[in-house]
């Protein structure tokens, strides 16, 4: 990369998209595809683009995130200079912890001031994609842009807050809408919450916003200035999974069973995650496994079809798991049946229980529950 870039990841924004899974954790630490957390994709994209310093903005429920990240060594981000830098909320008697993205950015100006990199890439954790960030930075330079926003063509979005973009033929954004009514009306350009700016430009923008008492980055900075600022849209053409609700989470999980999707996300074998030192998974005699992804540490005696098993899952004799997402260390005892179920971590499904949801509304079992 010609110019150096520092990463900033918002771990909590969009928590409300998927309250079932973010009740005890940040959006960033929501488990995905067997052995990953959503943040692994944003982090790996940065690392694979040569970024060696990533500030992670947290607000609440970040214990599981800290546990996941550790020193950062699993992403090659345990560095003397930089590496992973957690940015927990700052508050004192007069200042309350932030409530908006802009306030969060204000609270990390110290971090941004101390860095030396030319560019900042800001990413949320609600999207799963394999993205070359250095290409986005080059695009930003080429267009002499003030702000580059990455978008993806979508037909559906279920977030409670989202932005759509209207670029002209030169990729310059001419229209920017917040929460427009777009579902069911064909394709639109969804901003995927990845943005590039010069670091100094971002600092100036934040200071200016503080002086004027702005509170929303989207409304007060982007939407109001779309005509005057050089905002450019970078069209991401690869596979993108926006996790905007539990239904979307389920849908995008199931997509991972398609070879093309897997090849694109994981083909290069460069998505990093926390290492757990589990034993390889074991399949006993009598196991029947079809069209499924199975992570390390699983023990399978029963039938598993069209499902995703996270680390350390046990499927007992005579049990049947279909069209389901079974998270870490879930134990399904003998003779149970699950169809269209999402179990959070450490769930126990007792002998011969039957659980079923449907594809539009998967049955969700919360963390640590025993049924």
């Amino acid at each position, binding site marked *: 990369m010609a110019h150096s870039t520092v990463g900033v990841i918002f771990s909590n924004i969009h928590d409300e998209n998927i309250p079932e899974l973010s009740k005890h954790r940040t959006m960033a630490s929501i488990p995905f*595809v*067997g*052995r*990953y957390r959503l943040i692994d994709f944003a982090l790996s994209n940065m690392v694979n683009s040569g970024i060696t310093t990533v500030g992670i903005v947290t607000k609440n429920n970040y214990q599981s995130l800290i546990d996941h990240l550790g020193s950062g*060594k699993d992403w090659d981000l345990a560095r003397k200079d930089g590496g992973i830098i957690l940015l927990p909320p700052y508050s004192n008697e007069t200042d309350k912890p932030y409530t908006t993205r802009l306030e969060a950015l204000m609270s990390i100006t110290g971090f941004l001031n101390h860095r030396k990199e030319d560019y900042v890439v800001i990413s949320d954790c609600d999207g799963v994609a394999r993205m070359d960030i250095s290409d986005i930075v080059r695009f930003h330079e080429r267009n002499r842009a003030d702000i580059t926003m990455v978008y993806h063509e979508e037909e559906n979005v279920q977030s409670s807050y989202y932005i759509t973009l209207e670029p002209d033929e030169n990729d310059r954004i001419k229209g920017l809408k917040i929460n427009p009514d777009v579902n069911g009306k064909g394709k639109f350009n969804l901003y995927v919450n990845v943005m590039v700016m010069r670091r100094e430009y971002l600092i100036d923008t934040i200071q200016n916003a503080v002086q004027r008492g702005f509170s929303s980055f989207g409304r007060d900075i982007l939407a109001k200035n779309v005509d005057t600022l050089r905002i450019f849209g970078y069209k991401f053409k690869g596979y993108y999974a926006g996790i905007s609700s539990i239904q979307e989470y389920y849908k995008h999980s199931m997509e*991972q*069973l398609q*070879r093309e999707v*897997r090849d694109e*996300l*994981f083909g290069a*074998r*460069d*998505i*990093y995650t926390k*290492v*757990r*030192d*589990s*034993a*390889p*998974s*074991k*399949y*006993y*005699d*009598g*196991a029947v*496994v*079809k*069209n*499924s*992804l*199975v*992570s*390390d*540490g699983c*023990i399978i*005696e029963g039938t*598993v079809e069209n499902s*995703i*098993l996270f680390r350390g899952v046990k499927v007992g004799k005579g049990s049947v798991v279909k069209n389901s997402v079974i998270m870490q260390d879930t134990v399904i005892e003998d003779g149970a049946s699950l169809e269209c179920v999402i179990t959070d971590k450490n769930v126990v499904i007792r002998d011969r229980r039957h659980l079923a949801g449907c594809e539009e509304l998967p049955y969700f079992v919360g963390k640590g529950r025993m049924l």
Partner: protein
Amino acid sequence: MQRRKECVAMLLAGGQGSRLYALTNNIAKPAVAFGAKYRIIDFPLSNCINSGIDTVGVLTQYEPLELNEYIGNGQPWDLDRTFGGVHILSPYQAKKKSSWYEGTANAIYQNRSFMKKYHPDYVLILSGDHIYKMNYAEMLKAHIEKGADCTIAAIEVPMKEASRFGILNTNADGSIYEFEEKPKVPKSNLASMGIYIFTAEKLYRYLEQDDQDPNSEKDFGKNILPNMLNAGEKMFSYRFKGYWKDVGTISSLWESNMDLLGEEPAFDVGDADWKIHSRNPLAPPEYIGETAKVGNSMIALGCEIEGTVEHSILSSNVVVEEGAVVKDSVIMAGTVIKKNAVVNYSIIDENVVVEEGAAVGEDKSKAAGIAVLGRNITIGAGAKVEAGKILDKDYKGE
């Protein structure tokens, strides 16, 4: 206060492992893949850290590149320490005399300054070609309680195999009165496991003496241990009752891999109380496809299975295409078994391509032996590799 370690481990990892043939053409035996995600050296290294021993010298000599890279700074085993940790000890040039390691004892002798740096009371000698889980702390406790100068871990082996081992003849209290290296007519079936704890000062003294002896083979089993016994040093056996396997041959490597399978495996690598640490592959969960049949097997991350896998061990990123059959086999990382190829009773090393319709090995019930394919080779479409054959070059068939 002097910074010191009570016990330092020295792991002998220099052996060529010539009886593993094509599997050790370019790598040292301890770096050979085992159990779908491990390498042999993961076992002694994990035993060390799980036993509270955090200072380990790894003595390498034969083809050390891959082993050195694998061990790296020791972080996967929690052995990256500011004081202690894992260190690769290669033969080096000295001002007066430089030489390759001439024997196991000479290898340790040449690295005496490494051990002495930590001022240990005890030195644990390990070898890098055994699969087992053992708490060395308990062995050390026994060594201290008995006031021993040397304690040798020992396991009962079938009497008919005893002549392949160093045999310990012991008194009722476990003290050793005789040590026989591979006796023709063994008096007992208590075999040395090649795991020794020495009281450090004694070890240094006998290594010095041995170095002065021009007739010595500079070997623990042949020289150091008999010399200590003859001099009347206190030597004890330490009985080990768990699983232990020397994986120095093709058949023992195959058997030991298969011992991981089943509901009650002879050897369990999934034991949460005694984790086996290793470098982990950077790969997504394995995908088991629509047409796959998988039974009684262990499969690592990143595999893509569309064919049949039965009673086998597959390391990371192995591909078994539709119609292909893998049975009674050990397949190492990155190997591709293409459509309708059949692999039976074989060990296949990393990044091998078995082209469509090829056949490697024969059904175990009829096979004359285990077929072995060395790394990075291609078996041509429709080619047939006979049972027991060992190949390390591309093969197109006859």
